[in-house]
């Protein structure tokens, strides 16, 4: 069964249930106690009455009518009966008492309490005898009357309670409602918010119990605001970055159209193609990053970094040859890591591509794969001009470029590298080579399989 998830409902149920339960237990205990005391009291009255009858019978044995009844003096009197037997004969009885002894004694005289049934009515009977055992007295009382006394006692005790329960329910309901009203107000406040409104909710004046929740909520709001802000900035920056190559392509194409000299036209057309390549690369990077950030679930399998790096280098070699650069791979076997092959190859491609682009003609670019304890380290080293520490710190800031690099990258490559590394739990660091060597080293540390 589904439990209603309302704090108000649960509190109301708990409080009312407990109160009524405790009352009920108290009433049960009172019932047991009252019945015991009542039994004691009434039994003692029976015994007392029996004793009186015995004494009286012993003093005056007369031969009057044995049917002579005692007068009915109280409305409860019919519920009490007595019999007096003298030497086995009925000497006296109340009008509601039977002729036969209430307890079948046989020949023996007896003394004590017994519960008997006479004419479909249950009686509590006390039997007593005189000292010479010639007088036998029975005093009986209908058990039913004890029941009605008990019920009356309980009625007077529990009656007001039955009246109190609805009243109590009402007051408890009201109090609980008051108690949870800050929650309800918060709900209304949140429901009325516009989706773009990511302001913090005021914590002042809120109950202490709600503060952790509000703090968490405000934390979430500020994280979402940051995320949205970075998305907005990204879209603006991306539009900005795409316009420039397109403006370049357009200008070059117009120059080619209007050119009168062949050399001029050829140069403009080649520049147009370069612009297309750059725009393509930018769009590819933007898409890759968008996919990575959309949180596509990577497909993990065993990936051999060395053979993957070999493929990437083979793909990019023409780019390096065009700049008379030397590219190479220096790998130890085995170099298997757990990862998504497509993503890892995007990462390595970006690193090698960057190294080739930002290194001058004739430089060398080397990919090294080494094992260090439980880790496999992939290093991309170049012999380019390197970077100053402040520029290294700004890597990964989107669209940040190193001044004077001569190459116009988008700065997206490093964001992609970091994102892929994060997916694989790898640690990536970039630093300038230690003197006397120049150039950059980018180091990615993976856990080996």
């Amino acid at each position, binding site marked *: 069964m589904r439990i209603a998830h309302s704090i108000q409902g649960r509190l109301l149920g708990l409080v009312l249930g407990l109160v009524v339960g405790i009352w009920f237990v108290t009433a049960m205990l009172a019932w047991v106690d009252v019945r015991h005391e009542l039994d004691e009291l009434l039994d003692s009255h029976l015994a007392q009455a029996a004793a009186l009858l015995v004494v009286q019978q012993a003093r005056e044995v007369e031969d009057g009518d044995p049917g002579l009844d005692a007068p009915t003096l109280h409305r409860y009197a019919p519920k009490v009966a007595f019999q007096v037997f003298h030497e086995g004969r009925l000497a006296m009885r109340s009008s509601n008492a039977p002729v036969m002894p209430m307890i079948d004694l046989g020949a023996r005289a007896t003394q004590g309490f017994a519960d008997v049934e006479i004419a479909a009515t249950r009686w509590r009977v006390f039997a007593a005898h005189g000292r010479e055992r010639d007088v036998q007295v029975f005093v009986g009382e209908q058990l039913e009357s004890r029941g009605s006394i008990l019920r009356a006692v309980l009625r007077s005790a529990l009656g007001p309670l039955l009246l109190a329960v609805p009243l109590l329910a009402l007051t408890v309901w009201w109090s609980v409602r008051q108690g949870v009203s800050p929650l309800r107000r918060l709900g209304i406040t949140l429901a009325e918010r516009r989706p773009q409104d990511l302001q913090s909710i005021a914590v002042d004046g809120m109950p202490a119990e709600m503060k952790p929740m509000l703090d968490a909520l405000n934390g979430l709001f500020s994280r979402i605001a940051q995320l949205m802000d970075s998305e907005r900035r990204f879209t603006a920056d991306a539009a900005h970055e795409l*316009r420039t190559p397109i*403006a*370049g392509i357009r*200008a*070059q194409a*117009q*120059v080619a159209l209007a050119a009168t000299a062949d050399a001029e036209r050829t140069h403009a057309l080649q520049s147009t193609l370069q612009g297309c390549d750059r725009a393509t690369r930018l769009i590819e990077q933007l898409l890759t990053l968008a996919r990575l950030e959309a949180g596509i679930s990577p497909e993990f399998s065993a990936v051999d970094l060395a053979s993957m790096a070999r493929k990437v280098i083979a793909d990019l070699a023409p780019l390096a040859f065009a700049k008379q650069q030397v590219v190479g791979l220096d790998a130890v076997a085995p170099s298997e890591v757990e990862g998504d092959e497509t993503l890892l190859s995007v990462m390595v491609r970006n690193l090698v591509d960057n190294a080739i682009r930002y290194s001058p003609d004739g430089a060398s670019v080397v990919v090294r794969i080494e094992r260090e304890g439980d880790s496999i380290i992939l290093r991309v080293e170049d012999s380019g001009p390197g970077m100053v520490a402040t520029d290294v710190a700004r890597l990964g800031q989107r669209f940040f470029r190193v*001044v004077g690099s001569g190459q116009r990258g988008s700065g997206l490559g490093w964001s992609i590298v970091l994102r892929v590394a994060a997916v694989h739990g790898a640690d990536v660091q970039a630093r300038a080579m230690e003197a006397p060597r120049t150039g950059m080293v980018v180091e990615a540390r993976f856990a080996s399989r």
Partner: protein
Amino acid sequence: MRILLAEDDLLLGDGLRAGLRQLGFLVDWVRDGDAAERELRGQPYAAAVLDLGLPLKDGMEVLSSARRAGVTLPVLVLTARDAVPDRVRGLDVGADDYVVKPVDLNELAARLRALVRRAHGQPQECLSAHGVSLDPAARTVTLAGKPVTLSAREFDLLHALMLNAGRIMSREQIEQHLYSWGQEVDSNAVEVHIHHLRRKLGGALIQTVRGVGYMLASLQPGAR
């Protein structure tokens, strides 16, 4: 017309320089903010095309500090930032025109010519004096309604003199108008061009002020 182009993107800068040259401009191209500011303050350009996302110093800063330094030449801001607040800020800081990339080269050239014309107080595109009419857009010159063939330098020289009609231009000023960086200037080049112009358009048009420079006397708005 000599133009300063400040653009850090190699492809776009190269394209703009080539395109504007085809359309008759002399283009000096700088690739960062510091160089742009230095050139704006130091050289007598007719106008400047300024990208905002420049390295070293943002284009907006370059513009505002140049304006504070009293640089009055017309500046056309060419940028990828298309948001209205960016445009407003650019114009407020001192841009004379604000163009969002990508831009048509012919439109860019027309805007530059318009900026230069307005900067010289000329409401019309065509300049005219003493029966000589000059159309900067078509780069054509007529004398008494008949077309006259001028070389590019001669045209630029006539254009500069007509824009500055009534003012004396020194030989150095004229040279700076006619030649961009790295171009060899013969010591008597200006005299030679003036001589050619007088031969083609008549001797009375350009007056020599000895030891000072040259002047084009008066100018009436001319019809095409």
